[in-house]
């Protein structure tokens, strides 16, 4: 699993490279974030949660049977809206409230 940074959306704020536990993201010469070693990403989604403009998408690599779906997340106070966008454009959103525990 890895991430892609959507350059058109990125505002170069630097929050993602601060939190990456693997120090994998840096500022490119264009002033936008870039992932230096996409194969070293472990899919923790720390950067997705920090990004204020949803410019970072997580995907599953083809080597583990990824099908092109893209996961993004948008924080709204105590709510996390997780969205999966499929290659055909179909979207699924799951909202998790941090004030509620997991059922399991």
């Amino acid at each position, binding site marked *: *699993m*890895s991430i892609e940074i959507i350059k058109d959306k990125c505002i170069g704020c630097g929050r993602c490279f*601060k*939190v*990456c*536990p*693997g*120090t994998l993201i840096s500022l490119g010469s264009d002033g936008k974030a870039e992932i*230096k070693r*996409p*194969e*070293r*990403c*472990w*899919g*923790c*989604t*720390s950067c997705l949660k920090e990004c204020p403009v949803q410019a970072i998408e*997580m*995907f*599953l*690599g*083809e*080597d*583990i*049977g*990824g*099908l*092109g*779906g893209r*996961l993004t*997340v948008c924080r709204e106070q105590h709510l*996390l809206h*997780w969205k*999966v966008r*499929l290659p055909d454009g179909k979207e*699924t959103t*799951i909202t*998790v*409230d*941090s*004030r*509620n*525990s*997991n*059922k*399991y």
Partner: protein
Amino acid sequence: MNLEIKRIETDFLIIGGGAAGCYAALTFCRESDENVLIIEKADIVRSGCLAAGVNAINAYIAPGRTAQDYVDYAKADADGIVRGDLLLTMSERLNKTVKEIEKLGLTILKDKKGDYVTRGNRNIKINGENIKPIIARAVLEEPRVTVLNRVNAFEYIIDGNRIAGVYAFGVDHNVLYVISAKAVLCATGGAAGLYKPNHPSFSAHKMWYPPFNTGAGYAMGILAGAEMTTFEMRFIALRCKDTIAPTGTIAQGVGAKQINALGEVYEHKYGLTTSQRLHGTVVENLEGRGPCYLKTVGISKQQDEDLQKAYLNMAPSQTLRWIESGKTPSVENVEIEGTEPYIVGGHTASGYWVSTDRETTIKGLFAAGDVAGGCPQKYVSGAFAEGEIAAKASLKYIYDRRIEIDEGDIDKRKKQLEGFLNRTDSAYTVDQLECSMQDIMDKYAGGISMHYRYSDKSLKTANEKIIELEEKAKTLSARDMQELVYVFELLERLTVCKSVIAHLAARKETRWNSFAEHTDYPTKSNEWVKYINSRLENGEIRIIYRSIVEEGNIYEH
């Protein structure tokens, strides 16, 4: 490239700002007026095992249960090779640490009476997506804690048998740090990436154990001559295939059983300990009854949706897999597989040989969390508990005189680092040598492709080849500080590999199938109910056997 030298003095130095390190810092501030410094390779906001969150507190004493029950459980799971004193002192503190984290803002599910809702005898249900930012925030608010992010420790500074501090370097800045401290806590986590992973190419790293935990703490301890224990008890996780997401939430949450391709429940055939569940899956596959699954078909729509939510709080890749394939757990059983072996003292018993106070055999150096041995099944709350024990015990050194650090030694370390940075003609890359190391460990030291088995002959080969690799690794070059981190991570892993091989060879029995399955000695024997420890002496790993320490005793070095 020329490195700038920065000297820092502190009272209590914590290496690694994960669960154990952060909790230790908070404890220390409550107990003492002295200063704390945390050095962290990444940034404490999301570093360590808790980056994506956790879905449950897996080490908790449910109402009606006792700390001794938890000790008994962990002891049975490891077939006796645990430290009773460490398990009991941890277990006694589990619930209190959870309460502390709740006060900081962790959401814990409660019933109508306000009691925590438990999952079995040892689990409570939480919303742990933000557990690490919650703890990090508390640490950053403590005025006496300084956090140095993006600083990588690589060698202890020792005076006689007393810790004096640590050498470290900047991950993104050209600085050699010389940090002097009166007491030091090592909380750097376990060692991932020693063996060839399930998917060696693009998706080699996966969200369950940080691939950035490269065994730095183990390696620094080994090289400093600290006594280490039980490296032969490797941890191999049974996980959701491909994503390597944890399975416990499915197994315990909706009561899913392990079934083979014929639909037969096989788990009872092999036993229910952690290693037996994995071993059963290996054998079912070898005997032609695989692949194996968690039987989830038939769960309700509500359960299906709840599982998708629960995984977003700890391993979002699994939810993505379910949604993009349309094969959610109620539609298709979840296929399971074993990972490559890890060395991780939070699950099994590998790590520093410590006193009941979590002091290592080096005076003033403490260990907590995944680097501390003898105390398996500690998970998140156990790491907190060990952080607390170590922080309190460190106080006895805080009023000691500071130890002077030799200038000649500092210059030697500077030259060593600059050697890698200024070399341009290396014949190898870190990635090549890392691949080679993982392949050697896989084939000759019991990796996935060998169904986790090894023999005396294969281990001898593994050792010879790892030593050859070490020589090559000394000739690597690094273009910047980040690459220097990669060079040191490889060197650390090679150091840990040699100790793992030595321990696997020393335990001449098979006590835990898969975790340590020696084909020359395929059964277990009572004469091996003892710890296998080791210490580096004059460049050679010396094996030390020690007898079992029971709970109720205080162990001092």
